[in-house]
């Protein structure tokens, strides 16, 4: 199988000088330095140090994929590239960083279809822009570091209140060393009609990226945010432990889409959580293609009545990849509903797993949840696992779960061949059909990219 073609774009590393690079490992000194470098207020430093304390107390997870190869003491936790922070003029971004993002199609995307764009390189956001009219309406789309300085009250109120440091070890680590990311605030009854986008790029060897994305939708607001991620290929492992916090207030509607395509030696241990209030709607759309090991379970807390959460995700695991993904939904109020659609493809010894939790507490009357997982397997070296947990305390609720695992049937291929396609084209077509429910939820250019990526990964896979 020829994987070089498609990965080239992402796996190349740029020879960009870094302005500042913290020593390997994490300790109080590193954290004080990060905070000092960013000129942060005292309360943020305190939060970081508190998280560090919890990080040192917590144990590594004893379930899921093996994290043995991840040496937390060999990771560089903070790297600043030689570029002006938060430029809103594309011309000011240094040439080689610009080249990378241009290769990845960021400025083009902005011109075409987006209301705002951010681009983060290692630990720093290098470019940020938002449409003028949205700015006037009071929509805030900022680098997280800037938001701490400019909107301390808002940040203080929401920052790591949903994803708390004691949630798990990597949330604590994130709380201690977080840097960059996106801050979005959409005021009451405001609708952002075009998607906002951010692109995260990790370039330094053995580095970690810990961007913090905080999204607040005030009552009746609507927004769509897209995230793309990649990193170059080195011999040593790197770590991505980002965090996404979403607050969907009354009657608001949020859609969060991400395509994560980290290089294959990245550990992607990400935390994503949304709190949804009355009549609110939260939609998670996610694709996990790259990274050697992913542990990612977007979570929705349905705290208000009539709230809803929809999760759609796809995972692709090729050689040496372990994609442990899933979804968690807590039904904590009446008339809440959720759907989870998970698709996975495993091939060449890759491992995919769906790991999920549905919890309906007592009193969450008339709650409904439907989960469906489908897995495609290409050979008998690969593995496909499903670990759903459903926990129901309320009688007046309905939960259904279904899953299927199998290969592409010979009959389907034979039928398409009879219509004039080659066997390989037939497989591609069936795979496209398999991932369609996800792809059609993505904006056009992402959908095209996703399809192309999977098609390329599939090349020569029949047999």
């Amino acid at each position, binding site marked *: 199988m020829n994987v070089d073609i498609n990965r080239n774009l992402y796996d190349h590393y740029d020879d960009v000088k870094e302005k500042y690079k913290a020593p390997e490992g994490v300790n109080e000194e590193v954290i004080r330095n990060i905070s000092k470098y960013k000129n942060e207020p005292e309360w943020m430093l305190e939060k970081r140090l508190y998280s560090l304390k919890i990080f040192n107390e917590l144990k590594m997870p004893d379930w899921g994929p093996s994290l043995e190869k991840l040496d937390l003491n060999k990771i560089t936790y903070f790297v600043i590239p030689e570029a002006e922070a938060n430029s809103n003029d594309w011309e000011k971004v240094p040439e080689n960083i610009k080249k990378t993002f241009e290769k990845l199609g960021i400025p083009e995307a902005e011109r075409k279809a987006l209301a705002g764009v951010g681009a983060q390189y290692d630990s720093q956001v290098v470019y940020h822009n938002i449409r003028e009219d949205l700015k006037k309406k009071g929509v805030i789309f900022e680098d997280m570091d800037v938001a701490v300085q400019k909107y301390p009250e808002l940040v203080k109120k929401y920052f790591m209140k949903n994803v708390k440091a004691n949630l798990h070890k990597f949330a604590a680590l994130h709380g201690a060393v977080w840097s960059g990311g996106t801050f979005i605030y959409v005021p009451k009854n405001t609708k952002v009609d075009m998607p906002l986008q951010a692109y995260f790029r990790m370039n330094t060897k053995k580095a970690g990226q810990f961007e913090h994305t905080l999204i607040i939708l005030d009552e009746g607001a609507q927004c769509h945010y897209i995230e793309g991620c990649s990193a170059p290929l080195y011999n040593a492992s790197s770590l991505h432990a980002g965090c996404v916090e979403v607050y969907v207030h009354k009657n608001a509607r949020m859609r969060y889409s991400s395509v994560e395509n980290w290089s294959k030696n990245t550990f992607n241990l990400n935390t994503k959580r949304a709190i949804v209030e009355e009549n609110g709607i939260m939609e998670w759309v996610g694709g996990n293609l790259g990274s050697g090991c992913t542990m990612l379970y977007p979570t929705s807390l349905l705290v208000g009545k009539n709230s809803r959460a929809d999760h759609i995700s796809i995972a692709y695991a090729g050689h040496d990849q372990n994609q442990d993904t899933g979804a968690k939904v807590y039904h904590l109020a009446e008339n809440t509903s959720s759907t989870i659609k998970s698709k996975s493809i495993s091939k060449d010894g890759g491992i995919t797993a769906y790991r999920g939790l549905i919890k309906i507490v007592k009193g969450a009357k008339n709650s409904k949840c439907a989960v469906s997982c489908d897995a495609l397997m290409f050979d008998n070296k690969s593995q496909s696992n499903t670990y759903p947990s459903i926990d129901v305390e309320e009688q007046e609720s309905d939960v*259904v779960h279904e899953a299927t*695992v199998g290969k592409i049937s010979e009959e389907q291929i034979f039928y398409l061949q009879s219509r004039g396609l080659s066997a390989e084209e037939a497989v591609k077509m069936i795979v496209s059909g398999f991932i369609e429910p996800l792809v059609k939820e993505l904006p056009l250019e992402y959908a095209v990219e996703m399809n192309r990526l999977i098609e390329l990964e599939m090349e020569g896979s029949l047999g």
Partner: protein
Amino acid sequence: MNRESYLKKFHELTFDNIKSGLGIITKIDVQLDNCYKMNGSTYYDSNKKLFDEEQIVALEHEISKKIKHILDSPVLDNKIDYMHAALRYIKVLIIEENGEYIVSRKISGNQFIHLIIYVKENVDATLYLNTKTDNKELSFTPVSTEFIDIIVNNRSSVHFIELRDYGNKYFLYSRKKAHIGEYANIYWTNIEGPAKLNITELHSSINGKDSESIMNTIVLAKNSEYNIFTRTDHNAMNTKSLMHAGTIMSDSKSIMRGLVYIDENARNSNGYQKTEMLLLDNNSRAISIPDLEIHNNDVRCTHGSSITRPDAEKIFYIQSRGLNQEESKKLIIKGFYDSLLSEVPNGLRDNISNEIEEILYEKK
């Protein structure tokens, strides 16, 4: 290891709660440390060929070898497994001819039973195991460990039905495992009556090609706590399995975990798993964890799981046909468990259906 060393290990270990998945645990607050000193007794009212442990050596070499192998490699996951291995009281049943075998037991006090059922080649048999307690008032929580191994040899077919009614005072810890050879079939029907706490693993291991396992499980959860783990391993090609578990719950907590495992070598296998939980009141907690682990692509594996209540529309429809609400509900519940008795041979089915009804409605 011998009994003394198992017992020593039992005393050394501390007790861990049983983990079933993301933050889902079963706590065990039963006093175990002295329970082995208060051994109870079991009465078998069948004169079928039940052998004791000492008689195993006198059996045919092939049979005693297989039985010895199982006894010499016990599952030792936790403290209770060690206790069982130290204290187990072994009985062996050899099935050589086609026919129906019924074993009834009455249990009193603490029990540590290990039953081994050996089904020879080319046998088509039905085995019905009925376990009850003598219902004596006890000052302590009685403990019963009940392990059953069923060896189904090549080209044999077994219908295995077990109905256990321990009453809701017992702590029951149980492992049942079927070892299935080539071209062999097993049709299980496990009916788990109430218990204070019931931790059971039902395991079908399909080791020979072209074999089939169908496992139906009915859990009658009334003021009880359960942790039931049903699993089927496909270790050979062209194998088929179906696991269907139904739980009827009131005032209970129930964890139903299922696993279909398909090995790399199990080409052309087919697995289906279905878990249904019916909540009769609002004081219950139902947890369903239907897992799949697939290591081969030439398979078809699916599962479905649902947690529901008796459908109000169905009740209304039945009422419109002249039944009262209570009767309508009973009819829906009967439909729920009768569908799980499909693998019980005709002659026994009505009997068992009646016993289930008795457990559900008549005893307090």
